[in-house]
């Protein structure tokens, strides 16, 4: 019976160690969803400071206190991806490779890659045709969309980046780093819609 006990002790020890490792690996993966943004937080988010030239700036403190949800949280990014389709962004920006509007995938951000710049572009519009969405989207939606737009052009895919849609495919999805794939293939790859083998 002594030996039996040592077996179960051993099993418990092993379980504890494994649990520790597993929690460590998954702890940073927490995917809590905030479905309702408090109105005071929303209006605070709206009050970010932008540099005078409209390029770059600082998000409000509350944004960091929330843990930068619009750049790192899978749920917000996927909501942003929905909004990209629903608000007709693809009419000018296509699948991210541009059209009438600039590309998000060519590594060149006219107003910098910071999220506040993108939020400002969406909210207030920009010269040469970018309309303001101030009256058509809520603050939360604008931030969600901005986070997604930033994700499209990321050179290193974010862990939380969205996967492909159940639609016709035109380029690798955001979780595969389309900007990097298309950049590696050069401006006129043989199959610009394809990535390298996994």
């Amino acid at each position, binding site marked *: 019976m002594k030996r039996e006990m040592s077996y179960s002790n051993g099993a418990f020890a092993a379980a504890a160690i494994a649990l520790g490792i597993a929690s460590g690996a998954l702890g940073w993966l927490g995917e809590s969803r905030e479905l309702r943004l408090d109105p005071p937080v929303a209006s605070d988010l709206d009050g970010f400071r932008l540099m005078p030239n409209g390029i770059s700036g600082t998000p409000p403190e509350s944004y960091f206190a929330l843990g930068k949800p619009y750049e790192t949280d899978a749920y917000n990014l996927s909501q942003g991806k929905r909004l990209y389709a629903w608000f007709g962004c693809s009419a000018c920006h296509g699948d991210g490779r541009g059209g009438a509007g600039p590309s998000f995938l060519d590594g060149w951000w006219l107003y910098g890659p910071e999220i506040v710049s993108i939020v400002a572009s969406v909210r207030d519009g920009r010269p040469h045709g970018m309309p303001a969405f101030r009256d058509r989207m809520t603050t939360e939606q604008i931030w969600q969309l901005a986070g997604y737009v930033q994700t499209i052009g990321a050179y290193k895919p974010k862990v939380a980046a969205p996967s492909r849609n159940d639609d016709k*495919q035109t380029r690798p999805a955001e979780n595969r780093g389309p900007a990097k794939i298309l950049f590696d293939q050069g401006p006129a790859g043989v199959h610009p819609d394809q990535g390298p083998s996994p």
Partner: protein
Amino acid sequence: MKENIVLDLTELPAHALGTASPSWWGTLAFMLIEGTGFALSIVIYLYLMSLAPRWPLGTLPPDLFAGSALTALLLASLVPNILVARWAREQDLRKVRLGLVVMAVLGIVPLILRGFEFPAMHIKWDQNAYGSIVWVMLGLHTTHILTDVIETLVLACLMFSRHGDTPRRFGDVGDNAMYWNFVVATWLPMYACLYWIPRL
């Protein structure tokens, strides 16, 4: 409970050979699992084909050369493979060593040919469902070639070491040869499916 000895086992061999051996049955069971997997992949292929307006979807039928060459090579490899199995039964260490080296080579060359099969499909996995299933079928079979090659290499090392010359090791060689037969046998329907069904 008291025991009453009614049977004497002393004269039994100390190792079960061939179909008597548990590892032979274990290999068979794993082949059944993987065979089911292969069969299901073919079912998925045919299912997707039945839904598609035309097949292959959005591309040309695959080029025949690499796949056919690989098929021929796999079929040819059955001859030395069966010989290795026979030599293992005869426990002929020298011939088994030679045979394993030959089989290792005959395992590596198909891997190289397989490298040409993927581009011969004229489609990538992320273009459409046809691309997805052909890449998965090829990939599934490739992992089987790969694992068997590794097993052959490890066995070859063993047979050249001091652990080689035992009936148990020869039994392992026999099971490995059986597994290679399985790898070849499963490829034939997949080959027909991947290369000839799109041409029907």
